[in-house]
């Protein structure tokens, strides 16, 4: 049967609908925790099925405007792992904040279904629709804390700019379709080889339009303006979701689109991605230096990470793509871990970096995690961040763009300042000055008095991300192999 | 394909035909209502008041068309046309007999649903541009009513379309062709769909008991309270045109169109069926009181809508099992 190919997606979808119904049955607030566990169970089930499909190692097969291949399996596993962590994080975080928990989990899962389809889409139709299925829940999720004005602002900005980006992208797609009369990626590639770009500058414009949409989704400069406000305003678990899953899915879809549909135009888009990459790295890192709000800072740092990953597209050979996939894995886990720590120690606060002061005394586990995650983001050995960056820069040098790698390294050095700045607060003793007014503020804020007893599920989320980070740090090889397998599985003309 | 000139002539003929029909149905309504209430109705103009509608029409035409102060003039003046034109456009696809029809569209019934939805905007324009609380309330009510009854109507049509396997009204009628065996009509195979369609039809043309948008006792006259003269006449005509077109669609869908026992010609059968439906509508008007707004909504969403959905599912199953 053909639909067995999309069983993981079906599992996630059914879980989401089941949660909607379960939400109706469970009346008491205490029982609502079950919804989170149900979501978690669905995600784990889907991961298990994906792992099974990956282990079977079937040939890539197409059905219903999708291509199901190893590349998709790997990316979907990354997606689902990060989603699982986000759900784990949310169960306790939203105990008080939102009343509509059922809808919350269900929206996250629907968004993940969209992402999973997006990763597999090999056709403009299925791609664009799954992109919408991904985005619409995200708009709502970022505004789910209705009583928080910042959350509303986050949702509004994200919605407005996101819709604009989607429309621009769709406009670009219509031009491509007008030229090639094909909506599936391979058909487009076939037609594009016979077209002369110099005679048809509209193709270049169409491509730029499509990339603008992508750049918005993954938050690359100059399409990053929604990032700081949305990251700051959205509830922290939602931010962690926003910062990881859609980006992973967006990059995966971009990889598929570039290496298959646009492979004949590689010379043109390479240049575009060099520009995007340099801009994102530099702007992200430099603006992050001056941030005092940790969520905004992480937002800009994620822009910088996007810049590093985009370097891989400037090379776009098999090594670079597998390095990008590997980097995405690490980026996802480390980012979720960081946000998990923030969510567990900074509930109901305004997320100033000073708020972390003295964390090492309050919670050694959390401060250790922060240290590991921050060092990993910088890319100091032996953290996974190092392996990720090492692979990435090596592939860039290998592709003959040493100067680009040098820019990347300079940027990594700039980023040391603001990551270490966080650790300075966590392990430093600046807390004495702030302690007084923190004490005064705390009783007024009912959510904040649980600061010293972090709920166990949040702790679990942090520990799992920490464990994964350490595992990748110690045994990077299997994960690199996984990324390589994913890249090899792509049916592209660029490296076959 | 007809030439442009003859197409124009056909349209003109349709327009004149519909004018005669609507004058007739106005007269019929007044007389029927009167007799239901043991009155005589108009008796003085012509034989049993036969010329009364013409006199009324003359009065409308010569009346002054006042434009109240504070209205949104452009919208106020265009609204009656937006209401009337779609109602008239539906006429284009009605197959009166196998040969008397203006257009044979493949997506006939779909076209009807699409065109009807435009006139809703006309009601909205009329009510909103009048800057009058009664007309605004009236148009709000009408929109709510249209939206809630368009869905069950569409779903009940869907059941018929599934059985006939076509959207073409002509083919749907032909699928019910019969001589004496009138049980081939879809009303006998789809009784539930017929009932739903008929109720929704009643609501779509805002007649008692669903005349909330123009409830005289509550809203003076609803969305057309500020209109006078020919513009008012257009709005009124749109209602009667809607009455006729929708009942004739109903005839085509459920009562076999122009088919009937071969004692009468097709055209006569068609008008006989249509006017019987119209008569039933007058009858309902004379019998039933007006529903409340909440009753209207709950009937639409909680009764008709599920019933129509179930009907579609059952029809699908029966077709799959080859019962039909």
């Amino acid at each position, binding site marked *: 049967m053909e639909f067995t190919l999309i069983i993981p997606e079906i599992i996630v979808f059914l879980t989401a609908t089941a949660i909607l119904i379960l939400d109706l049955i469970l009346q008491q607030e205490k029982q609502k925790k079950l919804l989170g566990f149900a979501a978690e169970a669905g995600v784990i089930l889907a991961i298990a099925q994906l792992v099974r499909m990956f282990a079977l190692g079937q040939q890539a097969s197409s059905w219903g405007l999708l291509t199901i291949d190893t590349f998709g399996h790997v990316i979907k596993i990354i997606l689902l792992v990060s989603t699982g962590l986000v759900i784990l994080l949310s169960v306790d975080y939203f105990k008080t904040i939102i009343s509509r928990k059922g809808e919350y989990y269900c929206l996250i899962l629907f968004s993940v279904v969209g992402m999973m389809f997006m990763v597999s889409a090999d056709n403009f139709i*299925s791609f664009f629709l799954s992109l919408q299925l991904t985005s619409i829940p995200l708009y*709502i999720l970022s505004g789910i804390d209705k009583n928080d004005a910042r959350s509303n602002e986050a949702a509004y900005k994200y919605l407005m700019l996101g819709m604009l980006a989607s429309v621009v992208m769709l406009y670009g797609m219509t031009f491509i379709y007008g030229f090639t009369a094909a909506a599936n990626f391979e058909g487009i590639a076939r037609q594009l080889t016979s077209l002369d770009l110099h005679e048809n500058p509209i193709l270049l414009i169409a491509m730029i339009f499509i990339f603008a949409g992508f750049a918005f989704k993954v938050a690359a400069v100059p399409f990053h303006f929604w990032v700081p406000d949305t990251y700051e305003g959205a509830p922290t678990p939602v931010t962690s979701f926003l910062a990881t899953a859609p980006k992973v899915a967006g990059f995966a879809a971009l990889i598929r689109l570039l290496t298959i549909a646009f492979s004949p135009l590689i010379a043109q888009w390479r240049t575009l991605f060099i520009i995007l990459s340099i801009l994102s790295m530099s702007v992200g890192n430099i603006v992050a230096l001056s941030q005092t709000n940790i969520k905004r800072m992480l937002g800009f740092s994620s822009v910088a990470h996007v810049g590093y990953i985009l370097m891989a597209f400037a090379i776009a050979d098999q090594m670079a793509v597998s390095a990008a996939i590997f980097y995405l894995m690490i980026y996802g886990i480390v980012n979720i871990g960081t946000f998990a720590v923030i969510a567990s120690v900074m509930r109901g606060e305004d997320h100033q970096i000073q708020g972390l002061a003295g964390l090492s005394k309050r919670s050694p586990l959390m401060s250790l995690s922060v240290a590991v995650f921050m060092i990993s983001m910088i890319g100091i050995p032996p953290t996974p961040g190092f392996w990720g960056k090492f692979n990435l820069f090596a592939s860039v040098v290998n592709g003959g763009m040493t100067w680009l790698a040098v820019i990347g390294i300079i940027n990594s050095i700039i980023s040391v300042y603001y990551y270490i700045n966080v650790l300075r607060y966590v392990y430093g003793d600046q807390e004495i000055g702030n302690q007084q007014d923190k004490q005064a503020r705390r009783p007024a804020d009912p959510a904040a008095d649980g600061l010293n007893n972090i709920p166990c599920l949040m702790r679990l989320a942090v520990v799992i991300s920490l464990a994964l980070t350490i595992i990748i740090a110690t045994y990077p090889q299997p994960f690199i192999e996984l990324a390589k397998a994913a890249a090899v599985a792509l049916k592209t003309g660029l490296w076959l | 394909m007809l030439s442009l000139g003859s197409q124009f002539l056909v349209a003109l003929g349709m327009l004149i035909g519909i004018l005669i029909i609507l004058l007739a149905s106005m007269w019929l309504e007044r007389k029927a209502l009167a007799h239901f209430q043991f009155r005589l109705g108009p008796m003085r103009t012509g034989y049993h008041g036969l010329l009364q509608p013409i006199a009324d029409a003359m009065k409308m035409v010569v009346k002054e068309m006042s434009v109240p102060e504070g209205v949104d003039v452009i919208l106020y003046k265009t609204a009656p046309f937006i209401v009337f034109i779609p109602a008239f456009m539906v006429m284009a696809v009605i197959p009166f007999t196998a040969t008397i029809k203006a257009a044979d569209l493949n997506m006939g019934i779909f076209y009807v649903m699409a065109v009807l939805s435009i006139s809703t905007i006309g009601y909205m324009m009329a009510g909103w541009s009048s800057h009058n609380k009664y007309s605004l309330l009236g148009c709000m009510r009408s929109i709510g009513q249209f*939206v809630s009854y368009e869905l069950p109507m569409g779903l009940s049509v869907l059941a018929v379309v599934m059985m006939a396997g076509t959207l073409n009204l002509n083919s749907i009628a032909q699928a019910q062709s019969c001589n004496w065996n009138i049980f081939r009509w879809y009303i006998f195979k789809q009784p539930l769909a017929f009932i739903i369609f008929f109720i929704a039809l009643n609501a779509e043309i805002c007649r008692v008991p669903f005349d909330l948008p123009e409830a005289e006792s509550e809203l003076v006259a609803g969305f057309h309270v500020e209109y006078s003269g020919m513009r008012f006449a257009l709005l009124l005509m749109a209602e009667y045109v809607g009455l006729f077109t929708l009942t004739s669609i109903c005839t085509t869908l459920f009562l076999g169109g122009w088919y009937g026992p071969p004692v009468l010609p097709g055209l006569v059968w068609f008008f006989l069926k249509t006017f019987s439906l119209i008569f039933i509508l007058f009858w309902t008007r004379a019998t039933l009181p007006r529903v409340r707004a909440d009753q209207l909504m709950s009937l639409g969403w909680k009764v008709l809508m599920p019933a129509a959905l179930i009907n579609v599912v059952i029809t699908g199953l029966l077709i799959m099992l080859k019962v039909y």
Partner: protein
Amino acid sequence: MQLVIFFVLAAITTVAGIIMVSADNIARSIYSHVLALLGIAGIYLLLYAEFMAGVQVLVYAGGVSIMLLFALMLTKPAKGVIRALDHPRRVPAFITAVVLFGLLSFSIFQAKWPLKVEPSRVMTPEVIGKSMFADYVLPFEIVSVILLVALIGAVVIGVKGREDTDDEE
């Protein structure tokens, strides 16, 4: 003849579009939106896409716009002077728009479009239905999930939560 009709429809659509974005009165801008959509439906008819035209009228002109109007009437009207949709940076915006328009129209006219004069096949509702439920069943289902999600989202945003009622008590 077709060309004339096309230009008339295109002019209607464009003018309606311009009125839509520039009208001070939001109700008027919605009505001109309807007109623009109807113009597009006419262009579909010109391309022999009858079914598309029907869907366009039914869904957009008849459905979406009515919902817009309905939502408009349920909201409170703005008090005082209705502010025009202006922005201090409208000069740069105008320049950007003109440049983009110039660039796009230049490259559209420059391009060698692979034109086909005749529609490839007749798009009857049957053909559309069959391809929608066979080849394109997955996108079709995705659309339905998108609608479900939008519905849930509307409920999440629109319905008063328990937080709100707590405040009132």
